[in-house]
């Protein structure tokens, strides 16, 4: 099945089940991409997992996104699912405002989401509601900001112990 057919097939099933919650679908290279509303994330993952035909039972990856120019859709989460039997891969995205960065956790469906959501929280400050243990994972616990957000420059501006005259910092 090529990517076009897969996109239509999964898209139709999702629209029948979730209707307006699937706001947009597109194809990027070899991936069908669906933009979904955050309220349905958990139900949708569970539906895709349990459906006997679609059975997307493997979560490949999950990561945060930040688009500062999209008003009220600044932050986002991307999920990639894989049906290993048929070798179908899809991508889901959901966006939400930066002043209310909450999204339901995927850990109820996939155990692998646990650390990946912690990483996303660590970098983007996205709150996964229902996550069993949402702490920072790669950065130190004392950090007060979310470094992968676009407003933070590469160099850490909050440090005053770095004084290197040669590189002007």
């Amino acid at each position, binding site marked *: 099945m090529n990517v076009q057919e897969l996109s239509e097939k999964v898209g139709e099933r999702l629209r029948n089940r979730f209707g307006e919650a699937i706001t947009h679908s597109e194809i990027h290279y070899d991936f069908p991409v669906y933009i979904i509303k955050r309220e349905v994330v958990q139900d949708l993952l569970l539906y895709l997992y349990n459906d006997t035909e679609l059975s997307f039972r493997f979560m490949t990856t999950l990561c945060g996104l930040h688009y500062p120019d999209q008003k009220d859709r600044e932050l986002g989460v991307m999920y990639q699912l894989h049906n290993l039997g048929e070798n179908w891969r899809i991508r889901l995205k959901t966006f939400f405002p930066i002043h209310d960065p909450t999204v339901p956790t995927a850990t109820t469906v996939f155990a692998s989401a*646990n*650390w990946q959501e912690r990483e996303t929280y660590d970098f983007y400050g996205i709150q996964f509601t229902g996550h069993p243990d949402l702490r920072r994972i790669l950065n130190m616990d004392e950090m007060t900001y979310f470094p992968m957000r676009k407003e933070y420059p590469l160099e850490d501006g909050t440090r005053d112990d770095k004084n290197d005259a040669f590189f002007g910092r």
Partner: protein
Amino acid sequence: MNDQATLQPIEEKEYSTLNLGPTHPATHGVFQNILKMDGEIIVHSDSTIGYIHRAFEKLSEHRPYYQITPLTDRMNYCSSPINNMGWHMTVEKLIGAEIPKRAQYFRVIIMELARITDHIVCDTVIAVDTGAMTGFLYMFQWREHIYEIYEEICGARLTTNIGRIGGMERDFPQKAWDKLKWFMKEFPAKMKEFEKLVARNRIFMDRTIGGGAISAESALNYGFTGPNLRAAGVDYDVRVTNPYSSYEDFEFDIPVGTSGDTYDRFMVRLEEIWQSLRIIEQAMKNMPDGPFKADLPDFYLPPKEAVYDKMEALIYHFKIVMGEAKIPAGEVYHAVEGGNGELGFYLISDGGRTPYRLHFRRPCFIYYQAYPEMIRGGMLSDAIITLSSMNVIAGELDA
């Protein structure tokens, strides 16, 4: 004497806390595990990671595409060429470049050599942790020989930065071919020797069979990929399901285990070394003629001689080095079968000089979270070999 002073039996169990790591010689990397122990049995454990986090994803958003290759070296540094190639192929997919067959075969040879080094490290270290130092010392000589082949091709050994966006940096020199042929002739006998030493060794088998087991279902739920997933009995291999770089031309088997324990993980890696040798043999035999790079003037540096006396070459050279090559906007995901599993690159380009967003799907990071569950109820010494058999590489874990 006072009767009251006799010892009373302790009603409640008393647990002790053991801090394993972050710099513990048996963990082969910077990991911390805080273990709650009941005597020698692990009751509960908590992992802390991030000790060598270097913010590669943030760094990538500030570097032109060709400067990201050295960052990928430093993820799984036991098989850095696979990471390099994975990154090149991601960018090539984004720009829609066609890579000549010869370059693809070169890449296959290098990636399979890297897989052999990765599996040598993991398998011999399992043996070390069960008390067999000899195999490790002998096999590391052969890792060294592979590094010498890399050296002939790209000049570097561990952090290789090998290949370019659009192909290889040069044709294999004669010296590299000589070394590769010698390696292919001599290595199988040594590998056999190591296999004989360890694989059916009664002590080794008693130590590893049944230790740190995980079921196929649980492994999939935890996002396992690569040899660790195959040891649990799932035959998922990116080289077969989504072939890249002409893997569809080669004939090889995917070894699978049954119980997902330490012994199966060891054996799957051992067999994969043989399969890698098979692939390299086929690639050497069927090596196609042709160029070693694609015709991509926007991304592939022109020959240095041309830069000195040709205007066009000078302009391209300048544009590429300054990171001003024209890149289409789009988002792309490309995965390769790394030493530890599916190594994925999720790249969003907005047409600018650097990626807008780059996410690395690091297999170690995803499957290491199952570690507390795998060691619960086992002995501390089994936890050590479970960790080494999972081949968690700190550089990849923390990115």
